[in-house]
């Protein structure tokens, strides 16, 4: 019954979407507002419909209806309620429903805004959003239906179907297989939704871009309208990536946060083009140039989102992240092909009309540096894309499987990232339109000199490698320039309005949210860079088997194996928990409890590290569980990760900065009244 409702809602959503596409196209072609309005209503209707479907699925999950194949594959009796809800995105079919639900929510939200100035965009935004929605819903309807149940045939075999096959009876398993233990961690619970939010919300700027191409409104209106959307999409994508890294560090037990796994890269690539896009649109808004490039960037971003989804779900790549192989691959392929071909054809069509309206006057102007920033981002993208695609090519051509691992990516992208850091330091000091070595030099020399303190301190404390010294200098340089910008602005405001320094800062940021939010993001990046340099270059590790009372040392730390407790938990885990006491430079600093959780029903082990975190470093201890564990002897792997907590702090500030940049402004009229600035009044025109 409930499955019928859920599935029915999906089918109706598909039909309504197809209708909406037709209505909007018809309305646009014949200039008939009513049909477009009908399409808009269809768009709005999809949201409650999909909500019904999603809620039915959640209901099935929470009440443990194991006769449904999807429920059986991701939940089990021993799972608590909150985990059953989150298991919605623990499997392919459910996560597709979740994706469609988010897409419908965002697209509906967009159609609810005021469209007075952008009537021509509306039908095409509806078309693109509904086309994407229809695609994902049809994946559920035709291929990955979560509402199918188990049936026992007269022959005794079990089959899976939506409706009862002839003579079959419903088969209800006693228990489900349960969610993959790796997915039960809090970080893993919100990481997929954040990523999906990021992916899905990029559809909106893409839809507007396509609308602009179709209608010929090739000015920057589409950018201005979607400015906040793009920022929000980018916020969620960044948050998803950062959370993913944190989860990997906390739970996967290999002492790292980013493995350059193909599926990680698939999520990273749209972030790269998205960041390039965010910077590049500022140029178009200020100078009226790069219209074509911005189109290319948003098309790329959206295509990479779909492409990344395709890679993860089609089985073309296998990795720890990927969903099991399924039949949706070919359909995805068709959708990607269609999207790319259609977008490029539209762009080709409007190429001439996307001429620039201004000129680039100086190689050191801010526009030029932003373009350089784009070039570097594209460089990183090419490295990532090629690294993901090449094994595929190699296997097809030579039949030999190869691995493209972290060393390739790290070596290729490190100089590019360093270049980006450097630009982060210079670009804020370069003026729009015109800058020379002299003007730039005058602005730069003070922060440059101050920032040299950082590598100096590093050198004195024993660091000799050129890479970390350069890295620390770049981080300090960017920090100095950015803080200098804040200081300059606040001082100017203070001088003019007499506000106290902190208030001046507050109003400063509030007034130019995009700019100062961006600076805060840059500061976040600086801290992340410091953390990354620490853990990547200076990580040390050791491994050893200890008897009870035995000791193992890593640098200034000495660890003593005190005891091992083995017990069962209520939620079906067999836990082996070690107690280790830690001494630093001979002084006791605390106990750590690394553990190995073995999930009995899914027969999967998970190693949870015991971590001591300080600003200086993390002492990270894992029970090596593939060696026999007992209180007589246990094998431990110990990592010392210097500066890694700056990475998480930096991530936090990064998100904070994005919130500042994206924060909606007050009503413009009110802003006018409060501004106290000289403004050309319309009546004077």
């Amino acid at each position, binding site marked *: 019954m409930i499955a019928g409702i859920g599935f029915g809602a999906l089918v109706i959503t598909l039909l309504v979407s197809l209708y909406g596409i037709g209505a909007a196209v018809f309305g646009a072609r014949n200039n008939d507002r009513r049909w477009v309005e009908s399409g808009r209503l269809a768009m709005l209707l999809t949201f409650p419909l999909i909500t019904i479907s999603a809620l039915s699925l959640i209901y099935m999950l929470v009440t443990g209806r194991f006769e449904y194949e999807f429920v059986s594959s991701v939940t089990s009796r021993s799972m608590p309620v909150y985990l059953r809800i989150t298991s919605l995105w623990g499997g392919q079919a459910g996560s597709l429903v979740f994706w469609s639900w988010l897409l419908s929510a965002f697209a509906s939200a967009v159609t609810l805004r005021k469209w007075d100035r952008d009537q021509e965009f509306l039908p095409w935004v509806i078309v693109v959003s509904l086309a994407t929605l229809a695609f994902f819903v049809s994946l559920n309807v035709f291929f990955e239906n979560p509402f199918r149940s188990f049936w026992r045939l007269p022959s005794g075999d079990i089959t899976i179907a939506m409706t009862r096959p002839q003579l079959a009876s419903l088969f209800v398993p006693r228990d489900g297989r349960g969610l993959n233990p790796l997915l039960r961690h809090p970080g893993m619970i919100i990481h997929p939704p954040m990523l999906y939010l990021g992916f899905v919300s990029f559809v909106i700027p893409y839809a507007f871009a396509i609308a602009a191409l179709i209608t010929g409104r090739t000015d920057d209106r589409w950018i201005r309208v979607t400015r906040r959307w793009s920022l929000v999409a980018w916020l969620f994508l960044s948050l998803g990536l950062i959370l993913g890294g944190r989860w990997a560090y906390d739970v996967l037990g290999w002492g790292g946060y980013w493995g350059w796994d193909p599926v990680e890269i698939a999520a990273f690539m749209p972030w790269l083009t998205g960041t390039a896009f965010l910077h590049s649109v500022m140029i178009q808004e200020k100078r009226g140039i790069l219209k074509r490039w911005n189109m290319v960037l948003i098309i790329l971003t959206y295509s990479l989102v779909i492409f990344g989804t395709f890679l993860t779900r089609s089985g073309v790549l296998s990795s720890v992240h990927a969903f099991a192989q399924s039949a949706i691959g070919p359909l995805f392929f068709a959708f990607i092909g269609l999207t790319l071909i259609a977008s490029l054809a539209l762009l080709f069509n409007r190429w001439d009309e996307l001429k620039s309206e201004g000129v680039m006057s100086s190689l050191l102007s801010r526009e030029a540096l932003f373009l350089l920033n784009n070039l570097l981002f594209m460089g990183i993208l090419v490295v990532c894309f090629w690294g993901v695609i*090449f094994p595929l090519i190699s296997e097809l051509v030579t039949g030999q499987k190869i691995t493209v691992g972290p060393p390739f990516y790290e070596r290729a992208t490190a100089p590019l990232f360093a270049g980006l850091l450097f630009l982060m330091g210079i670009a804020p000091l370069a003026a729009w339109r015109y800058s020379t070595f002299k003007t730039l030099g005058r602005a730069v020399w003070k922060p440059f000199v101050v920032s040299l303190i950082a590598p100096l301190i590093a050198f004195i404390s024993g660091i000799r490698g050129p890479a970390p010294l350069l890295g620390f200098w770049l981080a300090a340089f960017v920090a100095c320039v950015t803080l200098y910008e804040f200081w300059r602005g606040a001082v100017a405001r203070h001088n003019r309005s007499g506000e106290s320094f902190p208030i001046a800062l507050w109003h400063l940021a509030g007034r130019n949210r995009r700019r100062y939010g961006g600076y805060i993001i840059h500061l976040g990046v600086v801290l992340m860079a410091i953390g990354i340099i620490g853990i990547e270059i200076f990580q040390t590790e050791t491994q050893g088997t200890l008897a009870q009372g035995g000791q193992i040392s890593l640098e200034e730390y000495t660890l003593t194996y005190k005891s091992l407790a083995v017990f069962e938990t209520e939620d079906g885990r067999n836990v082996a928990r070690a107690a280790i006491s830690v001494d630093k430079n001979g002084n006791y600093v605390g106990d750590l409890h690394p553990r190995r959780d073995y999930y009995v029903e899914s027969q999967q082990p998970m190693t949870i590290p015991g971590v001591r975190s300080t600003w200086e470093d993390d002492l990270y201890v894992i029970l090596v569980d593939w060696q026999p564990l007992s209180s007589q002897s246990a094998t431990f792997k110990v990592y010392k990760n210097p500066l890694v907590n700056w990475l998480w702090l930096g991530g936090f500030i990064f998100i904070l900065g994005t919130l500042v940049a994206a924060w909606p402004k007050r009503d413009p009229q009110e802003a006018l009244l409060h501004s106290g600035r000289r403004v050309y009044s319309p009546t004077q025109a």
Partner: protein
Amino acid sequence: MKFTKRIHTHYLITITIVLFSSAVIWLGTAYAQDDSPRIPSDDEVNAIAKKMYCPVCENTPLDVCPTQACTEWRGLISEKLSLGWSEDQIIDFFLEQYGDRVLAMPPARGLNWLMYIIPPLVFIAGAIILFKAFSTWKKPLPVTPIQDTKNVKITVSDPSTEGDPSTEGDPSDEYTQRLEEKLRKM
């Protein structure tokens, strides 16, 4: 005669003892060298395992892979280390036994050259396109006449945005919007 016989016997005994002792010492040291198979520490094994990937599970480094097979491979590394093999020898052995997949980066031969050449080539191509675009755009300080009334930018001076000739503050945007609308209706 009795005297020389005794000297001869002494000589013989001494020489025999010397020879025998040297033989024992020489053989002893030789055996002593062979007799202590070094058990490599976990760290030594991991240092090499870290550079390789599990041939069975994709994209998992050999030092963290938890499967039975990987445990045996680490055992193999340990064994080869104790036999005195160098890191390169061990990695080559794994390469021969298990294929290219075992390495963290594809070995640079045949088709794999493309792996290393394409990204820098594309980057350079991008840089060239960029600089070409610059040179066609680049102009002396522009005296750009207003070509298009659609994009009139109203600049307001605001000390808090010093160094930034144009701002994106709301009031100007609002005005631009109204202007655009009026112009379009014309």
